[in-house]
């Protein structure tokens, strides 16, 4: 690298670090049959971070309504099922809290059924449960939802295929490059090791991070069990400015 004493311009942008190996599933993962026709055949082309990737949409609290975090209070009556609290902290790869970011969730009802025209599973829908929630993280990166424990359900990926109980999560983080959609699972679920989606996370430690833990702290006495699910979004590179300090060749 060339030393450029005193020359601080143009300022290089600090981008977001690539994800560590083993943390992210491959796009083509044949055990999940639907990837076969939908995964690109060509490798993704790397691009250097520009302003387009280090910025991203920002949503305000004005978009969120009072009961959006409580999926048990969105209809006239109480939904069927076991009430639970889901809490967690959103951090970046540098262990800093991601504050004021939108968290969206959706899930099946207690019987393992979605109120969706494409869900033909022979289990009842619940007129008191839609299964959609959203909230914003607080200043310390924490979020909290009240919901019911989702049921497992069959799907047609392979013979006798069942999805483990799960809650879908969608997060934006501070940038286009930090977008993440994932799923939270429940501890001790015997279906996990049979589930191609869970197993698509290559590294066993990465898979285990998708499993929430029972959380006594957020459990509400005589009301609802608590589960904790922390989420890590990509971390940012250290600023490359130091490369340009006088004599400061790395």
């Amino acid at each position, binding site marked *: 690298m060339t030393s450029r004493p005193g020359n601080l311009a*143009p300022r290089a942008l600090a981008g*977001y670090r690539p*994800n560590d190996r083993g*943390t*992210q*599933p491959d*796009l083509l993962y044949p055990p999940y049959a*639907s*990837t076969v*026709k*939908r*995964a*690109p*055949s*060509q490798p*993704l*082309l*790397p*691009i*250097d971070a*520009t*302003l*387009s*990737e280090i*910025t*991203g*949409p*920002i*949503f305000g609290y004005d978009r969120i309504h009072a009961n959006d975090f409580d999926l048990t209070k969105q209809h006239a009556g109480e939904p069927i099922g076991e009430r639970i609290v889901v809490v967690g902290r959103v*951090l*970046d*790869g540098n*262990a800093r809290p991601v504050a004021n970011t939108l968290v*969206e969730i*959706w899930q099946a009802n207690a019987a393992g059924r*979605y109120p*969706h025209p*494409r*869900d033909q599973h022979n289990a009842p829908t619940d007129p008191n449960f*839609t299964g*959609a*929630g*959203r909230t914003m993280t607080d200043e310390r990166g924490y979020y909290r939802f009240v919901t019911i424990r989702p049921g497992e359900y069959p799907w047609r990926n392979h013979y006798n295929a069942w999805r483990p109980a799960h809650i*879908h999560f*969608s997060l934006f983080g501070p940038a*286009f490059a930090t*977008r993440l*959609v*994932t799923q939270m699972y429940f501890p001790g679920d015997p279906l996990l090791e049979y589930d191609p*989606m*869970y197993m*698509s*996370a290559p590294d066993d*430690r*990465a898979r285990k991070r*998708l499993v929430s833990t029972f959380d006594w702290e957020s459990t509400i006495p005589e009301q609802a069990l608590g589960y904790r699910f922390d989420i*890590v*979004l*990509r*971390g940012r590179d250290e600023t490359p400015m130091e490369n340009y300090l006088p004599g400061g060749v790395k």
Partner: protein
Amino acid sequence: MSLQTTSSQTVGPYLHIGLTWLVTDNLVAPGVEGDPITIEGRVTDADGAPVNDALVEIWQANRHGRYPHPEDRGSAPLEAAFTGFGRVPTDPQGRFKFTTIKPGRVPGAGGALQAPHINVTLFMRGMLRHLTTRIYFPGDPANAADTVLASVPAERRATLVAAPVAGQTGALEWNVRLQGEGETVFFDV
């Protein structure tokens, strides 16, 4: 301290339940500057079959090349009504459509300005992590010097450039082919 990023998982087939509350197919709110344009297209799989359960999100600068984000420390004007964000699910024919404005040029690598472009994120069943790509504008003289476009093999570059719709002013078409002939270029951002 360094933490490992949470693994991505698919949105699955029922994404609409959780994500359509924020559908935004028109970015031209009152007060947003620029002539409205439409960008419509279709998402197809390896067989050319329509993908009827995808979600398309876009992120773009305003007409002056300014992102509504604190990291954009530029001095170009920024309308309070401009969010830069769009989200639409595909319809039964795999189609999507946005109404927006053509963004201005934003800085790129080395400080040179990039050609006008829209950043795209795609989610769907069968996709374990989302895909990202870009839409560029047909006939824009800045395309020739854009470093991202230049990094794409010439024979695949056209997949990133929208096409004018004949006979319709301000209407553009841009399609996504996930796999196979004419496969869209996707980026590792």
